[in-house]
């Protein structure tokens, strides 16, 4: 990880991949696939079939609402005051009018969700993404975003605020929310994980492209690479 002088880190172009621990990462990916086939996939399908749509949506909203204190904290660390106020307003509206976060009236009021995490905070502070990393259970990440994940888990204001007994309920709703996501994206994930020629390479490419897009928006500086192949993937056959 390289710390820039100031301002956000440069973003590597879409197809540039640094994967120093590929052999280990592939082994973890095989473990994740086995876990998905044996436990996560079937459980998610059970959850999606048994629990009706509105209830699943409520669980999803509840879990998302509880993430907002963490978003706000990161927005402030990123010195993005506008986004911090928007997330604070969302949190207040959904916690009250939205019945403790079961509903999401804030989106309808023109306050859409903008997620963030400590990995993004590190990016804003100038920390480069480092290597691609596959995490057991969590899936694709980078060196920087793994550090971010650990910091987010340890510093989540909700976890710090609630009593240990309630903390397990928070964890449970978050797990249910992830199962809900797995169910919603069943076709997409099955196609990606079980029909592609190399699911590891596909997941790695999709994750890095999308993560850099989410970090950069349209304004982030792009890494200046001399290699034409990376700068522009389009071959001109004419």
């Amino acid at each position, binding site marked *: 990880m390289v710390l820039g002088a100031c301002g956000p880190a440069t973003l590597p172009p879409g197809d540039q991949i640094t994967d120093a621990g590929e052999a280990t990462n592939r082994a973890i990916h095989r473990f994740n696939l086995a876990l998905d086939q044996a436990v996560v996939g079937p459980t998610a399908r059970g959850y999606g079939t048994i629990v009706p749509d509105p209830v699943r949506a409520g669980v999803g909203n509840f879990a998302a609402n509880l993430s907002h204190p963490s978003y706000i904290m990161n927005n402030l660390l990123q010195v993005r005051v506008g986004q911090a106020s928007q997330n604070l307003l969302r949190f207040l509206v959904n916690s009250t009018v939205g019945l403790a976060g079961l509903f999401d009236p804030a989106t309808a009021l023109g306050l859409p969700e903008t997620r963030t995490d400590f990995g993004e905070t590190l990016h804003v502070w100038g920390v480069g993404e480092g290597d691609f990393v596959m995490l057991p259970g969590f899936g694709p990440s980078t060196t920087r975003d793994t550090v971010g994940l650990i910091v987010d888990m340890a510093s989540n204001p909700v976890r710090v605020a609630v009593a240990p007994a309630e903390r397990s309920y928070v964890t449970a709703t978050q797990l249910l929310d992830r199962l809900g996501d797995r169910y919603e994206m069943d076709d997409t994930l099955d*196609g990606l994980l079980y029909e*592609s*020629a190399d699911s590891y*390479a*596909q997941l790695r490419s999709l994750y890095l*492209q999308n993560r*850099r897009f989410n970090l950069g928006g349209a304004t982030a500086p792009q890494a200046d690479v001399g290699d034409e192949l990376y700068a522009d*993937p*389009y071959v001109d*056959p004419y």
Partner: protein
Amino acid sequence: MPHDTPVFRRAFLIASCGAMAGTALVPARAWALSTAQASGLVDQVTAEITRIINSGQSEATMLRDFERMLSRYADMPTIAQSVLGPPARAASASQLRAFADAFKGYMARKYGRRFREFIGGTVHVTGAQDTGRFVEVVGVVDMPTTAPFEVRFRVWDRSGQALFIDLLIEGVSLVITERSEMGSLLERNGGSIDATTAALGSLG
């Protein structure tokens, strides 16, 4: 002789070649793709895709329609060589043609099936910029249930006609993603483009 540098000679050579090909080159310049033309093409194509996915026809008919659209609006030689990457340089023209054709069918099947998830969605173009090499048209897809997401269409006219060379959804490029997938497929087929082309027939 300050003028007799390699750079100057090369520039002179290009200029004289340009002059010889003069009449052929001038219309090509006048044809340069504008952002308005590219946006118009995106509007036309998204309207056509919306019509196909809402037509209620069978999946097989829909996939055939998508393949026909790719033939008409996508720059298949560019896409095929871009997803093959460096191995394309060693391939013959007929190998590339066969690969491009097989890849077109694979793309229509793989992505055509996914288009069904966009039933009820609408695309509106929010802007376009000329990057120098191609025009990038930016749009937003509004869906009835999920949050809106961004799409980018890349269009160029190197073939003499404005055609699509890539599609990006939330930053994920079809060409970059398929380049990774084709790399894996080539490796599995011992680096043979012919074997990869044959394998594509049963994929997607």
